């Protein structure tokens, strides 16, 4: 029977005098099925505390916490042997070369000596540090250090990869490479990834499910795949040409729309209306379509909703009250 990757039940964690995690229950993932989970929340929500508790750095006050079927309290060594961690902060040993560093980390994780050396080279090539792997880590740039951190997290082939702000400080090319590597880990290597990040676009790009925390509790959990496939009623349009008559013409096909200026429109199509009809209408109005997409809650809106900052999706208002252009 396959184990749940991360299982929390009534987890409470207290640091100093404050209770940071106030009773969380959650089940994420299935062992052997590679998926990525985003962990989101404002600062102070308890994300780092949760991660550190998963790794056994903090002891729970109450409740259960287990990774891949191993209880974090009683079988911590097994948990750590199957987890790879990439911390947010700078973390390296200055006077070692990348290969020596990776070898050390690999052997500490339990890889046999010769294999650790092989894997060190493999991992370094894989993250793009092939050319620099014999140089000391103190000579590395920030982007390179981030990649080295990723390499040490994957060298022992863990089942669960925990990444804390992996794209921090990376320039666009490096960020792209990092996200591509993470996606590869889950798709090609079958690893489960727990990604903690403030950059919602990164999370949107890589993750299948998202857990949102606030004030030590989980306030929302959703499956991005399902969100993406959800209803197609809201349409975002960008046209060129004279769109003055469009607003008046929309009700004729049973739709309603709001103009945002510059040829941009937000349109609500009831389920009975075909997209084709809209196309015909646009053609009849002599408008050229530059962009036409179906709006679904972007992760940002899901997040803001979970935080209680907005009551419902923008665009739903187009359905209830249409503003004059």
């Amino acid at each position: 029977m396959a184990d749940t990757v991360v299982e929390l039940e009534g987890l409470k964690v207290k640091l100093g005098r404050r209770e940071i995690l106030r009773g969380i229950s959650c089940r994420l993932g299935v062992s052997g099925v590679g998926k990525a989970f985003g962990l989101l929340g404002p600062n102070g929500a308890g994300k780092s505390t949760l991660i550190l508790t998963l790794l056994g750095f903090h002891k729970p006050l109450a409740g259960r916490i287990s990774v891949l079927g191993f209880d974090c309290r009683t079988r911590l060594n097994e948990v750590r042997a199957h987890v790879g961690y990439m911390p947010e902060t700078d973390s390296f040993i200055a006077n070692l070369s990348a290969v020596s560093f990776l070898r050390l980390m690999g052997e500490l994780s339990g890889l046999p000596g010769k294999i650790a050396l092989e894997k060190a080279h493999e991992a370094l090539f894989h993250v793009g540090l092939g050319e620099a792997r014999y140089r000391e880590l103190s000579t590395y740039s920030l982007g390179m250090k981030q990649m080295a951190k990723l390499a040490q997290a994957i060298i022992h082939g863990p089942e669960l990869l925990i990444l804390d702000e992996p794209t921090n400080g990376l320039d666009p090319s490096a960020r792209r490479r990092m996200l591509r590597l993470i996606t590869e880990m889950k798709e090609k290597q079958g690893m489960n990834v727990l990604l903690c990040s403030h950059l919602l676009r990164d999370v949107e790009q890589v993750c299948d499910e998202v857990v949102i925390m606030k004030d030590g509790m989980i306030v929302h959990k959703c499956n991005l795949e399902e969100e993406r496939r959800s209803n197609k009623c809201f349409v975002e349009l960008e046209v060129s040409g004279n769109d003055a008559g469009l607003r008046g013409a929309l009700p004729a096909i049973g739709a309603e729309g709001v103009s945002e200026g510059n040829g941009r429109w937000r349109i609500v199509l009831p389920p009975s209306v075909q997209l084709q009809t809209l196309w015909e209408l646009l053609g009849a109005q002599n408008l050229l379509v530059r962009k036409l997409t179906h709006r679904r809650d972007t992760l940002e809106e899901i997040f803001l909703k979970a935080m209680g900052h907005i009551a419902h999706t923008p665009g739903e208002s187009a359905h209830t009250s249409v503003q004059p252009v």
Partner: protein
Amino acid sequence: MTSLSVVFDEVSKFYGEVLGVNRVSMNIPPGITSLVGPNGSGKTTLMNLMTGLIHADAGTILMRGISPRDPEKLMRITGYATQYDAAPRWATGFSFITTGLLLFGYSRSEAEQQAWKALEQVGLTDAAHRKVAAYSKGMRQRVRLAQAIAHDPEIILLDEPLNGLDPLVRAGTIELFRTWANRGRHVILSSHVLQEVDLISDQVILIANGMIVAEGKIRDVREEIQEHPSQFIVRCDDASRVASLLFDEDHVTEIRLNEDRLGLLVMTRDRERFSRSIGRIATNGHVIDSIIPADENVDALYEYLIGEGK
């Protein structure tokens, strides 16, 4: 009035042999301008040149008509939030900003008022009397921002200002930028998160290897790049059929089928004709689900002009 711009004219800066920037010329109007480029491309050098923290080896710089060699005048209208921490160990958030303001010549009560206003704007009033050393990363970022704006400057320079901020604070900070830009200020920031740059910038400056690669409004820059045909992503039910219809059009240079056979990536030399073609196809019995221009964003510009190459 051109004296309301930030103007660089053939500016070069070398640190011994190490390249800072090489013959940079640019003209930045008020509004939100983003500096985009790989690490080590010269963004921080440019910001330091703008504030007069370093001086150019060649060329002239005029910040709204004032030269950085005149720091007394310039620093009154400029605020700079650096990438790294600079608060003294003993300082609380409030005292950090107040002390800075005292240096400007404000009286103590004025300085405290202004400092409090700035802290309110960045949402740090709760933690204002705690030591900066105890702040989290995001809070330190915000206190740097606060100290940059406390004296109500006309030019605000921000080096990676959104780094480490959670999505809520990010959104709030972006609002602030927008407010200042609407008041006619210069908001010049550097960032690696290209999707955000897309959303918030009025203009963008791409820099690589110490040289300016592109400058201007995103769409204008894109239109100028002729070598790359425009890209559109088309989602439809019968991709192969739609593809063959599009192939008949001579403005189409390349089409790639998506693996799921429900989408196409179309490269075309003429956007208008493409829109016409697709409109025709959509009304002729083919279900076109969505059309998305794939490369009118900074991400694409970055890839075309700077790319992965080093």
